[in-house]
């Protein structure tokens, strides 16, 4: 007897989408994630659900991207925002060279209407500057287009929660250590990091959505899987410093961008083939300078802006070699390892955030076929949790006596769930208190997330509620969040302290590489609070430095 029809390995955008699709189709599903939902590649992306604009020479991909945007706006409109984007050109010739401009504007225009955006347009320098005065006035014209952005953390989490609500089992902090091709089922062994126990589960089929680790996972089953790993860095600024997104050519002719995102601005991205361990990579000085230097040409004041951190992730590209990264297809491949003599294992390579649902649909079709089950995909029709009627922020703020902005930010994360979070404060009015002062996050939302969204660490809470992602980078919320977490999960005093150190270490990973200017003062304050006041640097805790932390 097997435990599961499908065991999905990996809790990123693809893995959670697969788990959701399988669960919605009535397949008995287990999702295993070695860390937390959205804790790796997808958590370091810009959140753009792209029109596929850059891939105009792959029209099928553009079709797919556009269609997926339409679906996302149907199933998760509460976590989607639109950014208008300006792309300045210094010479008109740049636009017309080789017919490049007309190809992408034409391809974009064909699919604009279904996404609810206008076609690509051209704006004069004067018009462009009135929209974005930070632009370098030395330009010939701007190309204007619009893209949608989603909260990638919430998307993955909602997919996982929806899967769970439809019967799937979601296990985070469970790292797969072995795959045994027993018949008829496959046995997956995993180390549960929370219980420190080795466990196993049997499944008829395994879907390997391990992202950059997919090769390692396939190898456990004895299947070969080639991936072209490519790392990318983002520089994160403390607030929205531009009115609209800016897209421009980088020092090497690649496209980079500056996108307002949530309460921040993202500058990205780099693309470097990598053979490093995805777990320990941090943005390098070269990557940061490459981004700043490249953006400086179009936004000359960029270096005056406050950088709060960087994030670095690894793309699991389709293994097309001996060509530059941007020429590698942005499509995805489904690899049925039956051809390698390993049946029951299916892997992904490639793909983009916007395609995660499509990838899941395709693989679940294959899974169903292999299982001999007739199923119908509903993931493009059924709402994710929180997607629903408009939420009356002002009425809720008045009803609960909360700041309107706090409620509005809560709504932007949770849509119709907002009321359920606020309802907790009826019994506990003290939970209206602010935990994260920057985003902001109130205690009730933390409690709600802890009780309903299976976080185990403060870092998990960050992904669920954006805790500690603002200018102070956890300075004033870490100790409060740790206390709430300790109370809810019944942690010991020592665990409480370790939680704080772990979270601060995780923040440090992104803060350290770009640290300069105003952020130095911020860091002094952080260190003062946690070292000098809380004495966390003089505790006798069983804490091991993270790979990116410098030894004392």
């Amino acid at each position, binding site marked *: 007897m097997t435990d599961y029809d499908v065991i999905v390995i990996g809790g990123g955008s693809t893995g959670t989408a697969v788990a959701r699709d399988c669960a919605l189709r009535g397949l008995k599903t287990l999702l295993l994630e070695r860390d937390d939902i959205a804790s790796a590649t997808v958590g370091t992306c810009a959140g753009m659900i792209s029109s596929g604009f850059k891939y105009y020479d792959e029209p099928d991909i553009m079709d797919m991207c556009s269609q997926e945007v339409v679906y996302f706006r149907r199933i998760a409109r509460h976590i989607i*925002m639109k950014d208008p984007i300006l792309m300045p050109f210094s010479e008109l010739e740049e636009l017309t060279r080789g017919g490049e401009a007309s190809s992408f504007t034409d391809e974009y225009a064909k699919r604009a209407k279904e996404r609810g955006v206008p076609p690509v347009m051209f704006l004069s320098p004067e018009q462009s500057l009135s929209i974005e005065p*930070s632009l370098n006035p030395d330009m010939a014209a701007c190309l204007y287009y619009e893209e949608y952005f989603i909260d990638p953390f919430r998307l993955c989490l909602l997919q996982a929660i929806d899967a769970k609500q439809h019967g799937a089992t979601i296990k985070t902090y469970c790292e797969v250590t072995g795959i045994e091709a027993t018949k008829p089922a496959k046995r997956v062994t995993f180390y549960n990091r929370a219980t420190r126990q080795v466990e196993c589960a049997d499944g008829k089929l395994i879907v390997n959505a391990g992202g950059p680790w997919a090769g390692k996972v396939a190898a456990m089953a004895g299947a070969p899987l080639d991936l072209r790993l490519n790392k990318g860095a983002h520089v994160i600024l403390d*607030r929205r410093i531009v009115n609209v997104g800016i897209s421009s050519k980088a020092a090497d002719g690649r496209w980079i961008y500056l996108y307002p995102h949530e309460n921040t601005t993202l500058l990205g991205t780099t693309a470097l083939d990598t053979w490093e361990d995805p777990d320990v990579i941090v943005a390098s000085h070269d990557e940061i300078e490459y981004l700043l230097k490249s953006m400086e040409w179009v936004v000359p004041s960029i270096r005056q*802006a406050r950088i709060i951190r960087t994030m670095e992730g690894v793309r699991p590209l389709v293994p097309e070699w001996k060509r530059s990264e941007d020429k590698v297809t942005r499509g995805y491949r489904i690899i049925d390892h039956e051809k390698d003599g390993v049946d029951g294992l299916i892997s992904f390579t490639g793909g983009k955030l916007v395609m995660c649902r499509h990838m899941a649909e395709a693989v679940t079709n294959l899974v169903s076929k292999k299982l001999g089950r007739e199923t119908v995909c509903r993931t493009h029709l059924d709402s994710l949790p929180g997607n629903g009627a408009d939420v009356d922020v002002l009425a809720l703020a008045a009803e609960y006596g909360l700041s309107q902005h706090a409620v509005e930010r809560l709504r932007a994360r949770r849509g119709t769930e907002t009321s359920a979070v606020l309802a907790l404060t009826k019994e506990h009015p003290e939970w209206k208190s602010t935990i994260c002062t920057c985003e902001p996050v109130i205690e009730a939302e933390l409690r709600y997330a802890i009780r309903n969204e299976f976080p185990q660490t403060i870092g998990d809470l960050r992904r669920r509620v954006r805790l500690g992602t603002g200018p102070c980078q956890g300075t004033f919320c870490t100790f409060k969040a740790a206390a709430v977490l300790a109370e809810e999960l019944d942690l010991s005093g020592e665990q409480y302290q370790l939680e704080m150190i772990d979270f601060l270490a995780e923040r440090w990973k992104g803060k350290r590489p770009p640290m300069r200017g*105003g952020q130095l003062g911020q860091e002094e304050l952080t260190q003062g609070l946690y070292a000098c006041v809380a004495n966390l640097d003089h505790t006798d805790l069983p804490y091991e430095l993270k790979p990116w932390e410098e030894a004392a």
Partner: protein
Amino acid sequence: MSEEEAYRTVSATLEQERIIPFKTDELEVVRSAEKCVNCGLCLNHCPVVRAVGVDRFSGPRSIAVELSRSPPDFWSTADKVYLCTSCGTCREVCPFNVNMPDIVNMVRARIFKQRPDLVPRGLRAVRETIAKYSLAFEPWEDPNEKTESRDARLQAAGLPFIKDRTVKGAEVLFYPGCQAEERAQEVKEAAKFILNYFGVDFTLLEEMSCCGLPSRLIGDDETSRSLAARLREKVNLLGVKKIVTTCAGCTSNLSDMSVRDNWGVPVYHLIEFLAEEIGLERLSEAFTEGSRAGEVLTTIHDPCHLIRHTSRQISDHVIAVLNLIPNVTVVPSGVADSCCGGGGMVGYHSRDVADAVVAYNLGPISATKANRLVAPCPLCTAQIERNLFNTGSDIQVDDLAVFIAQRLPQER
């Protein structure tokens, strides 16, 4: 698609996404907000937080690290940012000099456009008055009544009337501000008397119009900019070299505008003008010849718009000038520089907050045993006077211009 059509389409998207582009002069304000490290020092000094608590007004640090980060969400901050009195105390104590008053104005400007319905009702009424009359106060319906009121105030203050004059090419424009023009007319008259006494070549405007500060504080940036532009035009036409005003708010706002829009004309508060341009020596001589209206024990209130938005030195000027007057003794209250609560237009929509702020000052003022309080701002004067009166205090509150005028010789 033509460029115009394209621009219209883009503008529609911007409006739909609630994006109101920063103006070039606002980019510096954004830069300033970025400096906040969330230390919270400002929270211990903010007079509004002290008066009503962080649940009602979340304070300057929350405006910097939270409320001002995402312009499309600014509409949702109306319940907080309209409670800032723009006193600038936070900017003074901030280790990074975060320019909170201007950040607040930048946020309000977007609320005003995104959700005019969320602008406090009391401010919408002021806005209508400004739109109708280009003045922050409704003007007198009957000019004769205005004159009668002026004369009554002059008589009460014991001051003679100096004829109004509009002279092209005069050295100085005396700009009384809306409050002294329409309400506290004795302040305007006292200033005219003082300028006249010292033989200053001054002119008034042909037609008084607002400097734009109230509109700026309401968030009506467009009106504020157009009022400033109109005033600038009048200043240019008159060809004056300096502007002198008796209003603290006008002083700081006109200084800001003059710098921002390159007017090329310096702006003085009357007390600055007296101390710096007339000189303490001439003042001293005049006071020696002046009337010896009984002994006065006076304490001072320093308007935020002067000491924090313009220069702390003005506070010294006030003391220096008062010290020249025979029979006048200045006693410090210890709260002279604490906000009167009347700024930021807070009193127009949340009187309870404004009064809670000034309540902090009342005890120490009474404790000085002074029988007088002087303030170089008609707005502060009115706010403190009303609140002192309500506590049963018999301390008389005077605008500094009136207090000085009364102590100059009436005939030369």
